[in-house]
């Protein structure tokens, strides 16, 4: 009985530790915090370098000197001629659904294929769907392989 209690405690502790480690990873573009799902929408050429800093938290920072090529979620809606009422709708991406903080999403302009307003029946609700173009990250380059790793890491967290 004692042994069982010990094992259960260890399992719970390990689970809690890994969960806190996962949630502690923050993503930035230059000095701005972004939603982790943004990694799916980066064009490799728009990113100069990627650095990972591990302290109490893990911070992944994407550096760019072409910030005009990276759009915020609201700028993306504007570009696709969608009005401000859509900002409150649920957001789904090609790779991830029901994004928690869509206002923190950022996108390379070329990686967005289209932004669609979907009408769901019979519930009669609307949502935003952002479709991405085919990714062309160069796996041999440091940036490309790191982007792929981050993507895989994010997929594993789902």
């Amino acid at each position: 009985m004692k042994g069982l209690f010990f094992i259960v405690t260890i399992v719970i502790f390990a689970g809690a530790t890994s969960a806190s480690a996962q949630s502690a990873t923050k993503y930035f573009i230059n000095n701005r915090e972004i939603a982790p799902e943004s990694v799916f929408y980066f064009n490799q050429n728009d990113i100069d370098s990627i650095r990972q800093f591990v302290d109490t938290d893990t911070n992944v920072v994407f550096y760019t000197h072409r910030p005009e090529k990276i759009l915020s979620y609201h700028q993306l809606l504007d570009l696709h001629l969608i009005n401000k009422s859509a900002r409150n709708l649920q957001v789904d991406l090609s790779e991830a659904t029901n994004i928690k903080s869509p206002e923190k999403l950022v996108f390379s302009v070329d990686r967005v294929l289209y932004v669609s307003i979907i009408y769901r029946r019979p519930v009669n609700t609307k949502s935003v769907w952002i479709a991405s173009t085919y990714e062309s990250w160069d796996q041999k380059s440091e940036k490309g392989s790191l982007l792929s790793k981050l993507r895989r890491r994010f997929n594993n967290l789902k």
Partner: protein
Amino acid sequence: MIMKGMRYYVVLLMLFFAHGVCSAQTPTLPDTNYRRPYLLIDGKRADPLSLMVLDKEDIRSLVVLSPEQALKYGKENTRFGAVEITTLHPKEILNFKQLLKFFLFKKEAAKLSFVVYFGFSDDFLSPLDKELFMASLSKVQSMYMGKHYEKDFKLFLSKRYIDESKTKKNVLLDSLVQSLGMEARRRVPKDREIIIR
């Protein structure tokens, strides 16, 4: 010699005149693939592509008229007959401007070319007059701005497929929808055709 040369000029002039008379008599149609009937919804003219996205549940009656019977609506645009539709739920059928508003697009989006996308790959067509285009809300899956093989952005309406019963009215509408689908397939450029063996 001069007389012989003059004869050619006279023949050419006559041909040119005949061509002018013929084109004045022929209604202006976009191209030879165009086979769309004249459409009336609740007595008002609508773009025939609307047939693609009308929900059978919203239709009270559907009457197909032959080109001869359709002459009452004038010679122009009735070459392929006419379709008269009366609706059950007119509020559920939106025009182009209402669709833009419902799908949260800005007013500038109205200036874009408009395309109805109703299947896979190349299954899309444009209305002749988007201002006359109408769609049942239940038949619209989504709207978006995209390129789809083209250079310029266009506004797309994507059709929703619903399982429907096979009543006489439904079968009639299905055959009209199929003929529009065939038009889309005829328009596919040869280099984009996919052959399934």
